[in-house]
C-alpha cells in the first residue's frame, strides 16, 4: 500500500486539529507545520515498516487476513488503546 497522497495527508492533519479544537485539547507549542510533519512521518513509517508490522501478526491470521483486514485490526487495537472504544 503506497503512502497517502499529499491532499490526504493534509486532510488527516486538518481533521486532527479540528477534532482537538472541538474538545479544546491543546497542542503544546506546535504549529500546523509541526503537526503535518508528524502525519508525514507516521505515514512514511507505516509504509517503510509494513512488512515488519505484518510479521507481528501470528499465523494463521497473517496468512488468512487480507491486507485491508489487517489494517482494520491494527486500527481497532490502536483505537481501543487510545479512546477505549
Amino acid at each position, binding site marked *: 500500500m503506497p503512502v497517502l497522497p499529499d491532499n490526504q495527508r*493534509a486532510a488527516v492533519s486538518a481533521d486532527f*486539529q479540528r477534532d*482537538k479544537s472541538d474538545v479544546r485539547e491543546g497542542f*503544546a507549542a*506546535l504549529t500546523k507545520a509541526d*503537526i503535518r510533519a508528524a502525519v508525514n512521518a507516521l505515514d512514511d513509517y507505516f509504509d517503510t515498516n509494513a512488512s515488519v508490522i505484518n510479521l507481528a501478526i501470528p499465523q494463521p491470521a497473517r496468512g488468512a487476513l487480507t491486507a485491508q483486514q489487517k489494517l482494520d485490526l491494527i486500527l481497532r487495537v490502536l483505537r481501543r488503546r487510545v479512546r477505549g472504544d
Partner: protein
Amino acid sequence: MASGNVLAVFVPQNGEPPASNYATLDARNAIMVADFDAAADEAIVFRGYLPGHYSGGGLTVKLYWMATSAVAGACRWQSAIERDDGALDHDADGFATANSAGTTTSGTSGNTNTTTITHASGAEMDSLAANEPFRLKINRDADGTSGTDDMAGDAELLMVAILET
C-alpha cells in the same frame, strides 16, 4: 479629533454566515465566539451603518480573538468591505479587495489577541461614505495566501471594532 472614533462594534451573534466556508458559532466559558478552521479559509459577515460623524480618514478594523488551544504560531486575518450605496445588487457580493494582517497568538490560549487591519479611504473601503450601510467580511486566511498562518487549531473571534483611522 475624528481619528480613533469608534464607528461600529460587532460580536459573533451579529454575524451572518456566507453561503459556504463559514465560521461556526461556539461558546467558551459562556462567551459566544466564532470558530475559524485551521486548514481552510472561513469567514463571517457583519452588516453595519457608517455613522454620520465619520470624517473620511479611512477605517481601522480591530479583531479581538483567541486561540482555541494553541499557544504558538501566527494567525492571518483578512477584512473586506462592501458598500451599499443603493446601486449594489444584493444578489451578488460586491466586496472590495481584502486587506490582511497577522498576529502571533498569546502563550495562554484563553488570552485575547488583537489584530489590526487598516483600510485607506477610497477603494480599500469600497468608497464607503458616512451614512451608508455596509457589510464587513472577516476571513481567516488559513491557507496563508496573504501571509503566514501556522497556528494550529481553531481561532475564536470575540469581537470586531471599527475605528476611524
